[in-house]
Structures are given as structure tokens and as C-alpha cells.
């Protein structure tokens, strides 16, 4: 495993960049635990002060230090994305494996369900949901709801991988030698399925964060907890751009970009490493 990371680091510029960005993200998340300011309070420091050595990202119109507030925002946004990814992984794996292994009508039914979900335009539906649930909305619920909509694409990928694996010779060998189906899945097939799961996880986190930002800006999530989206919401509410408090908008924007790019670069570099066809292509030089 470490060899993989070392190889990637040495030879893939994207991975290095991703490592840089994600380290910044991790640092911010860790810093949130030692923040000198409580994000839930207002008017802790002087308002609307531009960036200075004391307040690296300045302060906002609610009297919070933007930098330290953003550490919490980074933490919440990221963790919400992780929750979404985790839950939707479970659903995707279950669906994908069942459809792939059972085949027949179960497969067709599940695929029909999957295709339905893929087509549905999510934003209007999520807005509807957010609107109705805004009183009880919080990060966990949002993550959970997003997970309910985020699994179809990945389930499909897992299913096609399973279909390929079923026909492979080593599967038949295992079956003939008497290995139970459960162990075949775990021991023989999972090593093939895991790379897909890994790649789609990162993708999912990205996707979830995107939606969180959008929904929060519309005011449809838990506005009391700091997140990248709610930062922009409050900034908009206080007319930050017009009032000239540009740093309040710049900080979450920057945070979003760093997080998104970091995750994405990680995704592509790992993907290229794993996928044998890409490796073949890169060999040509």
C-alpha cells in the first residue's frame, strides 16, 4: 500500500498537488478542535475587519473570526460528505452485488430502479425536501438524504464488474472446489470490486459537498452549524459583496475550491494508477 502511495507521489504531479491540497484541508480540520473562538456565538470579535496578522481571513459581519469559523466549516462539510459516501457505498454495494449475482428479474428490477434515480433531476426534489424539512434539517440528515440519491450510478458500476467477474475462470474454479458463495464474494471478488468502490467514494464526497453548498446557500439546511455553504448563505444575507466584506466570500470559495480540487486530483491519479488500460496508454510515452 505504501509503495503505491510512494510511486504515485514520485511520478504523478496530480497526486502531489492533491496531497498538498488535502493536507491543507486536514490541517484546517484538525485546527478546528483547538479553535480559540466558539463558532456558535456571535460578536466575539470586532466586525467586518479585513485580513490582518491577528485575523488571517478577517472577520465577518456577525463578529466571528473568519479563519477559525472556516475550520469548523471545513470539518462539517467534509464529514457530511463522508457520511453520504459511507451510507451510499453500503447501498450501492448491496444493490450492485445483488443485481450482479442474482440476475434475472431481480437484476432487471433493480436496474429499472437505478435508471429511474439516475434520470431524476435532483436539485428540484432536494429543494422540495429541504423546504419541507428545514426545521429538523441538520448535517446528518442532509448527508443521509443525499446518500439515498447518490447510490444508483455506483451500483451500476459495481454490477457490471460483478457480471464480468462471474464469468471468469477463477470464479468457476472456486465454485468447483466447493467454496461457498459468500466466501467467493469476499475472498475472490472483493479485491476487484474495492477499487471501484474507492474511486466512487471520492466522487461521491465531491458530489455531496456540491449539493450541500447549493442547498445551504438557499437556506435549506441547518444554518446554525458552520459549513462552506452556510458561510456563503450568511455572507449573502449580510450583503457581504456590496458592503465590501469581500474576504467573507473569498474564504469559503477558496475552501470549496481547495477541497474539490484536492479530492478530484486524488481521484484521477488513483484511478489512472489502478486502471490497467490507462497504464497501457501511458506506457507509450
Amino acid at each position, binding site marked *: 500500500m505504501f509503495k503505491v502511495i510512494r510511486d504515485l507521489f514520485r511520478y504523478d504531479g496530480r497526486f502531489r498537488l492533491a496531497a498538498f491540497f488535502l493536507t491543507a484541508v486536514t490541517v484546517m480540520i484538525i485546527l478546528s478542535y483547538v479553535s480559540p473562538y466558539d463558532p456558535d456565538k456571535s460578536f466575539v470579535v470586532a466586525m467586518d475587519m479585513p485580513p490582518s496578522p491577528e485575523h488571517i481571513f478577517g472577520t465577518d459581519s456577525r463578529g466571528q473570526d473568519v479563519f477559525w469559523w472556516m475550520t469548523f466549516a471545513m470539518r462539517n462539510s467534509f464529514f457530511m460528505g463522508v457520511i453520504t459516501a459511507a451510507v451510499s457505498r453500503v447501498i450501492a454495494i448491496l444493490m450492485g452485488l445483488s443485481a450482479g449475482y442474482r440476475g434475472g428479474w431481480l437484476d432487471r428490477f433493480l436496474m429499472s430502479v437505478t435508471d429511474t434515480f439516475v*434520470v431524476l433531476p435532483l436539485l428540484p426534489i432536494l429543494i422540495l*425536501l429541504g423546504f419541507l424539512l428545514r426545521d429538523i434539517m441538520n448535517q446528518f440528515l442532509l448527508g443521509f438524504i443525499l446518500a439515498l440519491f447518490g447510490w444508483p450510478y455506483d451500483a451500476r458500476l459495481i454490477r457490471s464488474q460483478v457480471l464480468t467477474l462471474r464469468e471468469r475462470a477463477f470464479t468457476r474454479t472456486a465454485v468447483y472446489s466447493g467454496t461457498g458463495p459468500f466466501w467467493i464474494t469476499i475472498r475472490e471478488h472483493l479485491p476487484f470490486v474495492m477499487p471501484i468502490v474507492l474511486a466512487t467514494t471520492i466522487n461521491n464526497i465531491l458530489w455531496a459537498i456540491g449539493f450541500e453548498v447549493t442547498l445551504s446557500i438557499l437556506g435549506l439546511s441547518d444554518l446554525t452549524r458552520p459549513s462552506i455553504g452556510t458561510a456563503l448563505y450568511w455572507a449573502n444575507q449580510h450583503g457581504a459583496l456590496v458592503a465590501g466584506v469581500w474576504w467573507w466570500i473569498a474564504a469559503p*470559495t477558496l475552501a470549496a475550491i481547495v477541497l474539490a480540487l484536492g479530492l478530484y486530483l486524488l481521484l484521477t491519479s488513483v484511478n489512472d494508477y489502478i486502471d490497467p488500460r490507462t497504464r497501457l496508454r501511458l506506457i507509450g510515452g
Partner: protein
Amino acid sequence: MRRFILNYLLPRFVQYLTVIFVGITVTFIIPRLSPTDPVAAQVSMMLARGSALDPQAVQSMRAALTDLYGLSGSPLQQYFAFWGRLLRGDLGPSLGNFPTPVSQMIGQAMPYTLSLLITATLVSWIFGNLFGALSSYYPKNKGLKVVEILGQTVRPIPYYILALVLLVVFAFYIPIFPFSGAYPIGIHPSLSLDFAWIYVQHSFLPAATLVLIGFGGWFIGMKSLTSNIISEDYVVYAETAGLKERKILGNYVMRNGLLPQLTGLAMSLGTVFSGALIMEIVFGFPGIGSLTLVAVYRNDYSMIMGIAIYSIIGVATAMLIMDLIYPLFDPRVRYQ
């Protein structure tokens, strides 16, 4: 021909109906599961505005609202009434702009959203695929590498963030483009060239954002597809036979590569639609996205509902159309 209809058209049509059915049923169920009672919320909001009404009036208002929201009768009755109204094209009145019907307001906003959506999608799809294929065919080209890096950098950024950046930079600090709206206040939409120019100015940034984000996706997909196609037998054969590069690129590589991308285009409609809505919100473009924003602020429940329904039907229909067009391009599906 009959086999084609049975094997290809019918399943897709059934899927289409399923999607619409499921989507709309979900839209029906969700509000009824929520802890918020829209009628009570509406009533309390009206009372909070300070108007003192006698209990009788409140009661009748409550009854009227319940009827309006389609909440009268048993759930099953509601469901059928719901479908009945839907099939008549009645999405109820907008509560923010009472009594203008929701369908009318959506109808007014639709052309803006559609024009934005179609233009941006087509541009990003065509150029993304073109450059992706080229970058795979000419891997050493520096210019294409730069394009690739730009496309890849922009791609993961959430729609809102990119829109915000573009807005701030190009409308605020370097005021090339107007700040919001599709046309300045006081000007009426018309089919004149003047208006068209104003429209283009206003729609450029939202469209550009959509294009930028979409471009990267198509680019990378096509690049990977093309590199697989290049090693396919029929391309190697064409090269061995001495065909000109341009001919190979056009008729052999692109024609085959665009097929899966067509399917991908259909699948991406839902996402692009969501993106377009966000664009409109940021840039104040008077399409469905702005309608949504206003509806959220004004607690216009029936508007949000209507938009959700409309979106589901719209996207599903667009997908069906794409499915119907696909066989025109792929003879393997046409003749089985």
C-alpha cells in the same frame, strides 16, 4: 422493424412512464410525510403579519387552503385528485403571486431556462468531445494539454462557486458583463436584434459557467473513449490502408466515439438541469431557477412542488427523445 420496436422502443417507453410515475408519486408523498403542515404554516404566517381576523374567517381560510393544497379527503382520494389536476396541466396557484397559476409562471420562465440549457449543453458537449478526441489522437500537442488541464481544473468545482467567481471577476471588478437579470428593467422582450444582443450579454456568464464545468467532463470521457477506439482493429486497418488522418478522425474515430457520448448526454440531463437552475440563481436570470429562489423565500409551497414536477417530466421527456434519436446514429441498434 417490429423486432426493433419491441426490443428497443418499448422498454424505453415503459421506463419513461415508470420514471414519471415514480418521480411524481415521490413528489406527492414527500410533503405528506414531512412534519411541517403547510396549511398551518401558511395560516400562522398570515396571522403573524399582524392581520387580526375573526376565527370564522380563519376557519374558512384554512378550509380553502387545505383544498388548494390538495389535502382534503383521504390520501388515496388526494392521490387521484392530484393526478387528475396534473393531467389537465393544473399545478395550482402560486402562493407568492396569488392567484397566478404556477403553470403560467413556469411557462413564462421556461424559454429562458431552455435557451440557456440547450445552448450550454450543446456547446460543452460538442467542444468537449472534439477536443477530447483530438487530445487523444495527438497526445504530444502542447496546446491540447493546456486545454485539458484547464478543463480538468474547473470540472470538480461546485456550480455555485464557479458562478460566484465568474460573477465577481467579470461583472464586479472588471465590469464587462451585466450584474443580473436577462435584460435591464424597463425593456420589454422582443424579437429584435437589439434585444437579442442585450440577451446575449446577460446570458453569457451563466452559459459560460455551465460550458466550462461541462467541458471537462466530456473532454475526459471522450479522450478515454478515443484512446480505446484508436487501438480498435478498424482504425488500425484504415491507417494501414493509407486513409488520410482527417478522414480517419472524422468517419472512423469520432463517429464511433460519439455514440456512447450520446447516451452519456442523455444521462447527464438531470445534472445539467440542476446546474442551470443554480446559474440562474446566481446571475438573477429569469428562468425556473430564479422562480425557485423566490418561491423558497416566500414559502411558496405550490410553486416548489410545481417546479419539481415540471423538472421530472421535462428531463424524462428529454431523455426519451435522446433515446429515440440514438438509433439514427447507430446502425447496430437499427438492424438487429
